[in-house]
Every structure is written in C-alpha cells, then in structure tokens.
C-alpha cells in the first residue's frame, strides 16, 4: 500500500496545507517574539523555545513567567494547564492511527500536535498519514521559530495593518475545518454553535473571564463535547477499516 510516490505525494500535500498555517504562524510568532524580547530572551533562545514547544498560548505564558523570574514548578504547572487541550487532541488522534503504522511515528508526529496541525490532520479522511504531517510540520515549524526570532530582533517593525490582517489567517483555517462537516452533520453544527456562544459568554462573564483562555478552552471542550456525546452518540463502529 505504502509506496514511495504515495509518501512523497502526501508530504507535498502536507506542505501545501502547511502554507496558510505557516503564514499565520509567522505573524503570530512575530508578536510572540516581542513578548520574548521583553522577558529577556535572545533570538536563539526564542527560536529554540518555539521550535521545541510550538504552542502559542503556552509559550506566551512561558515567556511571561521567565520575565517574572518564576519558580521552576510554577513554569511546569502553568505549562501543564495552558497546554492540557493537546492531551485531548492526542487522544482523538490516537483513534486515527493505523495498527500498521511504525511505532516511532507516535513519538515524532505527537511532538507537533498544534491546534492547526491537529485541525488539518483531523480534516483528512481515513487514517493518520505521518508523511502528511511531516510535510505540514516542515513548512509551519520553521515559520513559527524564525518568526519568533525575528520578532525578538526587530520588535514592532511589521506594520500593524499587516499583523492585524495576517493574524486572522489562523481563524480562517479553523473555519475551513469546522464549517464543512457542520453543514453535513447536525450534531457537529451544534458543537460549533455551542462553542462560539459559550466561549463568548466565558470571555465576558465576570469571574469566568479571569481564567486563562487555555483553561477556558479545556473546560468548555470537555463540557460541550460530553453533553453532545450523550445527546447524540455517534453511530456504532462501521466494522474495521
């Protein structure tokens, strides 16, 4: 099944889908770099942090804590909380792994489960194809790391207009992933609507809005998904694929 042209085809497909991600990453990473500079990181340190962690909210929290001279345990705890949603995403991905896939891919594909890469992975039908993920990673992660380093070096050189326009690229991608299945499946449409409404509520209700967005994301995800899973359980397994 898995021949060489198939794999390189998947890699290129991944690279292509990685372009809008990389574009959005670059703009976001640039502003993240400004935060890293304020915390006293060198461009190399910023690039390293971004290449290893590939997490926007998580890195933002990390840089803030570094700037504040926080204790190591605080960094570990905050990192755990701001990135807990990746745990759920990886659980979801585990269900897409073919038993035939080589083991080491679990360790390498898993290292770069970002919101966006998770999104495009889930959007593909069928089993997870590591080559596709590596293609997307090969484009997106350099944009992310270099963007961070450039943000540290050049500060706010990019015009605000460009940052503003580029920063919605990420959300556009999210919409491209969630809207087509929502059009086809009622419960998914309900997921999207409930997600929009309740996260807006969480952002404006006093007290709740004091929680970090990472915490809000995970609490709302668990709550909404659980309720909809009870109300609309998916059809029984269509035998083995």
């Amino acid at each position: 099944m898995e021949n060489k042209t198939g794999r390189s085809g998947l890699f290129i497909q991944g690279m292509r889908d990685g372009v809008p991600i990389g574009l959005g990453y670059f703009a976001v990473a640039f502003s993240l770099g400004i935060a890293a500079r304020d915390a006293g990181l060198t461009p190399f340190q910023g690039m390293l942090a971004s290449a290893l962690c590939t997490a926007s909210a998580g890195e933002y929290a990390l840089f803030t804590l570094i700037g504040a001279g926080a204790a190591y345990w605080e960094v570990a705890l905050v990192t755990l909380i701001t990135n807990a949603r990746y745990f759920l995403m990886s659980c979801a991905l585990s269900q897409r792994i073919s038993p035939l896939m080589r083991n080491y891919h679990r360790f390498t594909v898993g290292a770069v489960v970002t919101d966006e890469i998770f999104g495009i992975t889930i959007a593909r039908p069928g089993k997870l194809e590591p080559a596709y993920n590596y293609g997307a990673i090969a484009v997106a992660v350099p944009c992310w790391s270099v963007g961070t380093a450039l943000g540290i070096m050049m500060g706010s050189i990019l015009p605000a207009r460009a940052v503003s326009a580029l920063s919605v690229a990420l959300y556009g991608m999210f919409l491209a992933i969630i809207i087509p299945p929502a059009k086809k499946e009622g419960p998914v449409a309900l997921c999207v609507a409930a997600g929009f409404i309740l996260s807006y509520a969480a952002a404006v209700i006093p007290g709740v809005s004091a929680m970090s967005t990472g915490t809000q994301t995970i609490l709302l995800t668990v709550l909404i998904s659980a309720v909809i899973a009870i109300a609309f359980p998916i059809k029984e397994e269509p035998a083995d694929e």
Partner: protein
Amino acid sequence: MSKNYIYIFLAFAVIYAIRVLPLTIIRKPIRSRFLRSFLYYVPYVTLAVMTFPAIIYATSVPAAGIAALVVGIAVAWFGGSLITVAGACCAVVFIIELILV
C-alpha cells in the same frame, strides 16, 4: 541567561509528555460509545471555542474581526479550500481596516 534554557527545556518536557502520552498509551480502538462520541466531537468544539471571540480581538477593530468571521463561514460553507478561506479572511480585514482605521 543560562537559566532561560532550563525554563525552555522544562516547558518542552511537559508539553511533549502531554502530546505524546495519549498517542503511546492508547493503542487500541476505544470501545465505549460515549468516549468515541466524545472524542469525535472534541476537535470541532475546541476549534470553535478558539475561533470566537478570539477572532474579534485579533484585529485592530472588532468590526474587521466580525466581518472576517462571517466571510470565513460563508466561503467555507460554499466549499472554499483551507487557503482560500484563510486568504479571504485576511483580505476582508485588510480592506475594512483601510477604511476604518
């Protein structure tokens, strides 16, 4: 200075564990219908939660973010690809901010 490296590697270790543990521990298809339904819905809910209202705060004026949301939903609804939808959102924000800001 070198303390920064400890911070960075510490954060990496925690994030890596969060991401890779489920992939290495969960080896079999989950049987529970509830859990499978739950995991099926998780991605859509997460992405929706992260999109709104964040898209409004990402732009200089909220109106641009709202317009990007509406246009993005419309383009995606009519089958636009990943890059088309993302590009349409960027273009809308750019144009609206040219007018309003």
